[in-house]
C-alpha cells in the first residue's frame, strides 16, 4: 500500500505581535494523519477559519518548515528531518492550488506565463506540446486559451482566476494536488464542474487530492477521507461519508449543524461563536472546551487523546473516552 499522506506529530509554531504584544500560535499542534491506499484518494480537510489548514498544506508543499514532526506524501518524505526530495520529482508529485487567486499571480505578469512555465519547465514539453497541454488544461476548467492569453490577473474575476490556477496545477499531472479552497471564489454551477473535474482526474489520471474547504457538501460529495481541524488540532478523522452523516466530535456536529441547507430553514437560536483566536490558541487541554456543550473539568487541563471508533475513525474528545474506552 502506498502512503498517500502521513504526518507524524507535526507541529508549527508562529510567533507574532509587536514588541509589546507578543503572541505565540500553534498553528499545527501535534497533527497525526495517516492515509494509506493503492487507489487515489481525495482527502478533505475542513475546519474553522484559522485552524491551520493552510499551514498544513504549506508544510506538505515545503513552503513552511515545520517546528517539529514529519510529513510524507505519496511515499515521498516532504517535511521534517531527512526530507529532501528532488525538485523535479517533488513538483511532479505534489502541486498546489492556492487559496486566494488574486494573490497567486503576480500582477506584473500575464497569467498564461505561469501556465507556460509549468508546461515547459515542470513537464519539460516543447513549445507546441506545451500550448496543447495548456489548452487542454484550460478547457477542462471551462476556459479558452485565447481569452486567458496576454491578460493580467486584475483583468479576471476571482472565479476565472481560480480556474486558471487549477488549470495550472493540472498541467504536470501530479500524483497529489493540494487544493486550498479551490472553489471558494467560484459560483455554484462552476463549483460543481470543478469538483466533478477532481473526480474525473482522480479516476482518469489517478490523482489524489488534499481538498481544503469550507464547503462540507462538496467535501461529502467527493472525498474518501475527511479530517476536521480546530485550532491546530485534528478533532476528527476518518471515512468522509460516515463522519459527515454521523459526526461524533461536538465540533464536527456543530459544523454540520451550521451548513446552510436548502431543505429546511435554521432555527433562530443563540449561537456561541469563538472568542479572540489567540486566546483559544493558548488554551491547554481541549481548545474547543469553552464552546463545547459537553465540556468537563478534564477538558481544561488535559489534551484529549485519540479515540478510535469502530468504524475506523479517530476522534479526539474526552467525552467519548467515557463512552468508548481506548482500544
Amino acid at each position, binding site marked *: 500500500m502506498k502512503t498517500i499522506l502521513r504526518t507524524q506529530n507535526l507541529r508549527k509554531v508562529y510567533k507574532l505581535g509587536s514588541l509589546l504584544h507578543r503572541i505565540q500560535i500553534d498553528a499545527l499542534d501535534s497533527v497525526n494523519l495517516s492515509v494509506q491506499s493503492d487507489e487515489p484518494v481525495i482527502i478533505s480537510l475542513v475546519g474553522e477559519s484559522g485552524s491551520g489548514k493552510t499551514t498544513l498544506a504549506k508544510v506538505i*508543499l515545503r*513552503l513552511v518548515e515545520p517546528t517539529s514532526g514529519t510529513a510524507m506524501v505519496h511515499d515521498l518524505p516532504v517535511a521534517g528531518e531527512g526530507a529532501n526530495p528532488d525538485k523535479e520529482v517533488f*513538483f511532479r508529485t505534489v*502541486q*498546489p492550488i*492556492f*487559496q*486566494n487567486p488574486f*494573490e*497567486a*499571480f*503576480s*500582477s*506584473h*505578469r500575464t497569467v498564461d*506565463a*505561469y*501556465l507556460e*512555465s*509549468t508546461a*515547459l*519547465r*515542470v513537464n519539460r514539453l516543447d513549445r507546441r506540446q506545451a500550448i496543447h497541454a495548456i489548452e487542454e488544461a484550460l478547457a477542462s476548467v471551462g476556459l479558452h486559451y485565447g481569452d486567458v492569453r496576454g491578460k*493580467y490577473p*486584475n*483583468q479576471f474575476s476571482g472565479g476565472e482566476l481560480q480556474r486558471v*490556477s487549477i488549470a*495550472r*496545477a493540472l498541467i504536470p499531472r501530479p500524483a497529489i494536488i493540494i487544493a486550498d479552497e479551490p472553489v471558494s471564489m467560484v459560483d455554484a454551477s462552476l463549483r460543481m464542474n470543478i469538483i466533478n473535474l477532481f473526480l474525473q482526474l482522480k479516476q482518469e489520471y489517478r490523482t489524489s487530492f488534499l481538498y481544503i474547504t469550507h464547503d462540507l457538501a462538496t467535501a461529502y460529495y467527493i472525498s474518501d477521507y475527511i479530517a476536521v481541524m480546530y485550532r491546530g488540532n485534528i478533532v476528527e478523522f476518518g471515512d468522509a461519508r460516515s463522519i459527515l452523516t454521523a459526526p461524533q466530535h461536538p465540533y464536527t456536529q456543530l459544523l454540520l449543524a451550521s451548513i446552510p441547507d436548502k431543505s429546511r430553514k435554521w432555527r433562530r437560536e443563540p449561537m456561541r461563536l469563538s472568542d479572540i483566536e489567540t486566546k483559544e490558541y493558548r488554551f491547554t487541554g481541549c481548545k474547543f472546551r469553552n464552546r463545547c456543550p459537553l465540556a468537563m473539568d478534564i477538558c481544561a487541563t488535559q489534551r484529549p487523546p485519540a479515540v478510535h471508533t469502530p468504524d475506523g475513525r479517530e476522534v479526539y474528545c474526552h467525552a467519548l473516552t467515557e463512552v468508548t474506552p481506548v482500544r
Partner: protein
Amino acid sequence: MNSILRLKRDWFSLFLPSRGTQRRGLKLNLRLRLGLAILAVLVVASFTLPFFSDVDPMQQGTYAKNLPPSWEHLLGTNSQGQDIFWFLVFAMRNSLLLGVAVSFCVTVIATLVGLSAGYIGGWYERVVMLLTDSFIIIPVFPILIVLGALFRGRASFWLVGMILVIFGWAWGARTVRSMALSIREREFINMARFSGANTMQIILWEVFPYVYAYMVVGFINAILYAINTEAALAVIGLSNLEVPTLGSIIFWALNYNAMFIGQYTWIVAPVIATVLLFLGLFLTSTGYNELYAAKRGHS
C-alpha cells in the same frame, strides 16, 4: 507593506484644461512626451553639438573675457575667455555620460545584490547586508575627500565615476532587498516555484517587476547623485577640473566669483541645465510608470 514606488500621479494636470476619462491617455502621453522631449533635446544637443564646435571649449583666452550674451556667444564668455554656451554643451555631455554610466552600474549592482539577498536569504543575505549596511553607514563624503586627495587630478574622470559607483550602490541594494523580502512572502512566488521556475527566474520574473518601478526612480536618482556628487567634489576642488562637467563649470564660476561680477549666465546656466535634466528624467520615469500601470489595467 509591499509598496512599489509608483511615481505615477502627475502635477502635470496643472497644464491641462479638460477633465474626464479621455484626458487620462492624453495626459499620460503629454507627460511622457514632455519628459522625453526635454531629455532628447539635452541628449541630442550635448552629443551632437560638440561635433560642430571648432574650438576646444576648455581652452582659455579664446575670446575676449566677460562678454555679455550675444548671437555670437549665446551665453556670453567667462572670465577665462571661454564661450559659456559651448563649455556647457561639453559639460552636459560629460556629466550625462558620467551620470548614466555610474547610475547604470549602481542600479545594476543594487538590483542584483538587493534582489538576491532579499530572495535567497540565509547566510548569504546576512553577510551581504552587513556589507551593505557598512557602506550605507559610512558617510561617503569624508571618504571621497580622502580618495579625492589621493587621486587628486590624477583621478581620471572615470576613476571618479568608479568611486561614485563603489559608494553608491548600497542604498539602492538595501531598499530593493527590503522590497524583495516582502515580495518573497507573497503567494505568487510559491506559484512560480511550483511552475518550475528556478531562483534566477523567480528573481527576474516575479520579484524584479515589483522593484522595477522603484529602480527606474533609483536610476534617475543615481544619475543625479553622480552628477551632483561630482559637482560637489569639483566645488571643493577634488574632482578633475580640466574636464568640462557641470561641476567644473560651477567650480570655475565660483572661483571667479561669477555671482558678484555680474556673470550670471556662467553660474545659472549649469544649475538650470541640472534642473532641466532632472525634470526630464523625472517626467519620463513617472510618465512611463503611468503607461506601465495602465498596461497592467490599473487606474
